[in-house]
C-alpha cells in the first residue's frame, strides 16, 4: 500500500511533467513576441541586466522586420564549459552588435544558447529544445561529437547548421552543415607542411591526447603527411584524459630519441604542464602547436616566460592589432572580464557568417526552415567573410572553410607573426 502511494504520486508527477512539456510546446507555437524576449533575457544571464533590458527594447522596437532566431548549442557546464561559454559569449557580442546596427535584413536577431554538457545525447536534447523555441538556424555544437549527433537531426529536419568549432571530418558530412574552424586533418597537414617547408627540424616528437577527438585527429593526419616531408617522427607519446598531469615519461622518450622539435596538438592546459616539466628536466627544445595552444599565456600559476619561442598555427590571436580583433577583445574584456580565446572568436565569426549568408540569400522572417536551409546552404558557397579567424574566408559545398592558417611565435610574452 505504501509503495503504491509513492508510485501513484510519482506517476502523477511524471504525467504532470509530461503535460507541462506539452503546455510549453503549445505556448511556443503561438507565443507572443513579448514572452520570447523575456525567454531570451533569461538565457543570456551572463549579460548584465541593463543589456538584457536593451535587447528586450530592441526586440520591441524592430518587431516590424520580425525576428531571426539562432539556436546555439555547446557545453556550458562541466569540464569543457570553457569552450562552450566562450563560444556563447562571442556569439552574443556579435548578436548585440548586429542588433545595434539594425539587424539582418531588418530582422532582430535572437540567440538562445543551450547547454549540452559535452554529451551527444544532451546535445540532441538541447537541439530539440531549440526546435521547440523556433530556432531557424543552429550555431553549434561547439564540440565535434555533439556536432555530429546534432547534424544527423538537423539534416532530417532540414535546418541550417554552422558549427563554430566542431572540427572532426564528419561534422559537415551533410549538405546543410558548415563549419568556421579548420578541420582536424587540415590542421595536421598544415602543421606538417609548415614544419617541413620551413626546415624547422629533422627529428620531431609528438605528444598527444589519445582520448581526445581533436588531438588524435590532428596527430593522425600529421603522421600521414610527415611521410611526404623532410623530417621524421622519432617519438609519439600518448596520454589520456585520466592521466594528464605527469608528462615526464613522454618527454624523456622525446629527449632520448633526440627530437629537435616537439609537436603538441593539444589544449593549452596540458601544454603548460608539459612546458613546465620540460623546463625542470632541462629539455630545451622547440615546441610547436595548433590552435588549441591559444590561451597558454593566460594559464594561472604558469610562468609565461617558459612559453617563449613556442610556435603555433592558429587562426586567431587575441594580441593581433587589426581593428576587428582589438574591438572584439576590448568588448569581450569589458563584458566578461577575460581575454577571449579562439572559441569566442569562432562563435563571433559564426554569427557574422550567418548574417552574410542570410543577406546574400535574402532571408526573411516568414520563410520556413527548409527554405532558409536551402537558401543559406546555397549562399554559403558564394560569400566571402572577413572575420576574426581569417580574411576572405570562403566555403565550398562540402562545408569546409578555406582560409590561410597563421603561424605565430610567442615573443616577449605576446604573439608575434612569423
Amino acid at each position: 500500500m505504501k509503495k503504491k502511494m509513492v508510485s501513484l504520486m510519482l506517476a502523477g508527477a511524471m504525467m504532470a511533467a509530461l503535460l507541462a512539456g506539452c503546455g510549453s510546446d503549445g505556448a511556443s507555437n503561438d507565443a507572443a513576441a513579448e514572452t520570447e524576449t523575456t525567454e531570451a533575457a533569461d538565457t543570456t544571464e551572463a549579460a548584465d541586466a541593463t543589456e538584457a533590458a536593451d535587447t528586450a527594447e530592441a526586440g520591441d522596437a524592430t518587431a516590424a522586420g520580425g525576428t531571426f532566431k539562432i539556436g546555439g548549442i555547446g557545453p556550458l557546464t562541466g569540464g569543457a564549459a570553457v569552450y562552450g561559454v566562450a563560444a556563447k559569449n562571442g556569439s552574443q557580442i556579435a548578436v548585440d552588435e548586429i542588433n545595434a546596427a539594425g539587424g539582418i535584413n531588418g530582422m532582430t536577431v535572437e540567440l538562445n544558447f543551450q547547454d549540452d554538457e559535452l554529451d551527444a545525447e544532451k546535445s540532441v536534447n538541447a537541439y530539440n529544445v531549440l526546435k521547440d523555441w523556433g530556432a531557424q538556424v543552429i550555431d553549434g555544437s561547439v564540440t565535434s561529437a555533439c556536432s555530429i549527433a546534432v547534424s544527423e537531426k538537423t539534416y532530417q529536419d532540414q535546418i541550417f547548421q554552422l558549427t563554430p568549432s566542431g572540427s572532426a571530418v564528419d561534422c559537415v558530412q551533410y549538405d546543410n552543415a558548415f563549419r568556421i574552424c579548420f578541420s582536424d586533418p587540415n590542421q595536421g597537414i598544415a602543421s606538417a607542411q609548415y614544419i617541413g617547408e620551413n626546415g624547422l627540424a629533422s627529428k620531431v616528437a609528438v605528444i598527444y591526447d589519445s582520448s581526445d577527438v581533436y588531438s588524435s585527429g590532428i596527430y593522425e593526419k600529421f603522421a600521414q603527411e610527415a611521410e611526404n616531408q623532410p623530417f621524421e617522427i622519432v617519438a609519439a607519446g600518448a596520454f589520456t584524459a585520466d592521466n594528464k598531469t605527469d608528462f615526464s615519461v613522454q618527454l624523456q622518450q622525446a629527449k632520448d630519441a633526440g627530437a629537435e622539435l616537439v609537436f603538441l596538438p593539444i589544449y593549452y592546459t596540458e601544454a603548460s604542464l608539459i612546458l613546465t616539466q620540460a623546463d625542470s628536466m632541462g629539455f630545451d627544445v622547440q615546441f610547436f602547436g595548433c590552435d588549441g595552444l591559444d590561451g597558454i599565456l593566460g594559464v594561472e600559476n604558469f610562468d609565461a616566460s617558459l612559453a617563449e619561442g613556442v610556435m603555433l598555427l592558429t587562426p586567431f590571436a587575441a594580441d593581433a592589432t587589426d581593428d576587428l580583433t582589438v574591438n572584439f577583445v576590448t568588448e569581450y574584456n569589458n563584458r566578461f572580464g577575460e581575454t577571449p580565446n579562439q572559441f569566442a572568436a569562432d562563435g563571433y565569426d559564426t554569427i557574422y557568417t550567418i548574417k552574410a549568408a542570410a543577406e546574400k540569400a535574402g532571408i526573411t522572417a516568414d520563410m520556413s526552415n527548409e527554405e532558409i536551409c536551402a537558401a543559406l546552404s546555397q549562399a554559403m558557397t558564394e560569400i566571402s567573410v572577413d572575420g576574426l579567424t581569417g580574411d576572405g574566408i570562403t566555403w565550398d559545398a562540402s562545408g569546409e572553410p578555406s582560409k590561410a592558417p597563421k603561424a605565430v611565435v610567442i615573443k616577449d610574452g605576446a604573439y608575434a607573426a612569423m
Partner: protein
Amino acid sequence: MKTKAAGISKTTKNDLITYGMVILTYIIVQILVSTGHVSSLIQGLLVPFCTYAIVAVALNLTVGILGELSLGHAGFMCVGAFTSAVFSLAFKQTMPSGPRFFLALLIGAASAALVGFLVGIPVLRLKGDYLAIVTLAFGEIIKNIINALYLGVDSDGIHFTMKDALSLNMKEDGLVLIKGAQGVTGTPNDSSFTVGIVLLLVTLFIVLNFIHSRTGRAVMAIRDNRIAAESIGINVTKYKLIAFTLSASLAGVAGVLYAHNLSTLNALPKNFGYNMSILILVFVVLGGIGNIRGSIIAAVLLTLLPEILRGLSDYRMLIYSVVLIAMMIFNWSPNAIFFRKRLRQRLTAGRKSEKEEA
C-alpha cells in the same frame, strides 16, 4: 475489486499494474504525438526514457533482488553499445534494418552477459562489497580500452590496434569501425520509441518472471540470509552468477538502444563513466530498492527533470540536486514514512466515515 483479485495472486496483480502502466503510457504518448501535442524535446527524450528505464530495471535486479552493489552498469551498457554499433556499422549496407537491429540486440546482450559473467566468476564467490569495487574498476577499464582501441575491416579481414588509425594498415576498401577516442560514427538510427517500449516490456517480463521463479526465490534467499540458504543446499555462487549475468545482459540491451539512437558513440566519462553508474544507482534507490516499477518511474523522472529545468539555466543543477535530496527524504526518512502512514490513515478513516454517512 475483491472478487476480481481472488482469481489472481497479489504479485501477479502487481506485475500486471507495471505492464499496464508501461502500455498505457505508450498509448497515451502515441496519441499525443499523432495529434501533435508533444514538444520535440519530449519526442527526442522518449528513447532515452526507455534506455534508462531498462538499465534501471537491470540494476535493480542486482541491487534489489541479489542484494549486491554494482557500480559498473554503465560499463556493461558501454560493452553492449559498442559491440552492437560495430556490428550495425559493418553490415549497414548489406542487411535490411529490421533483422540487423535484432541481431545487434542479441550481440549486445550476449557480449555484455559474457563480460558480466567473467567479472562475476571471481567476485561473486566473495562476501562483502567486493562486487562494488570490482565493477567500479571494470567500468573505468572498459571506457579506457575503448578510447584506445582502433578497429577496422577490409577485404583481408579484421584489423585492430591500440596505437593509432595508421597502424591498422588497411587496404583502400577498408572501413574503420572504432576510431579510438573518436568512437563509432555513422551508426544507423534504428531505435524508436516503439522498439524501446517493446524492449522495456521484454525486460520487465524477464525480470519479473525471474523474481517469481524458483531461481529468483533462491537468489532472494541468498540475499536475506546466505548461511541459511547454503544450509538448505543452495549453490550460492551459481545463483548469484545467474542473476548478475542476466542483469549485465539487460544493461547491454539498454546500451544497444542508446547506441542506435545517436549517430555518434564515444566512451566519455559523461555517458559511460563512473557518474553514469552512480546515476543509474540513484534511479534504483529513489525508485525503491527491489521495486521494479519504482525504478522505471524514477528513471523517467530523473531523465526528464534536468531537461524541463533548462529554463533556469545554470541553476538547474542546483534545483536538480535539491529535488534529489527532497525525494530521498520523502521516500526513505523514517519520519517521512511515519507522516505518510498517518496521512493515509486519516484519509482512509475519512473515506470510511464518508461511506458510513452515505
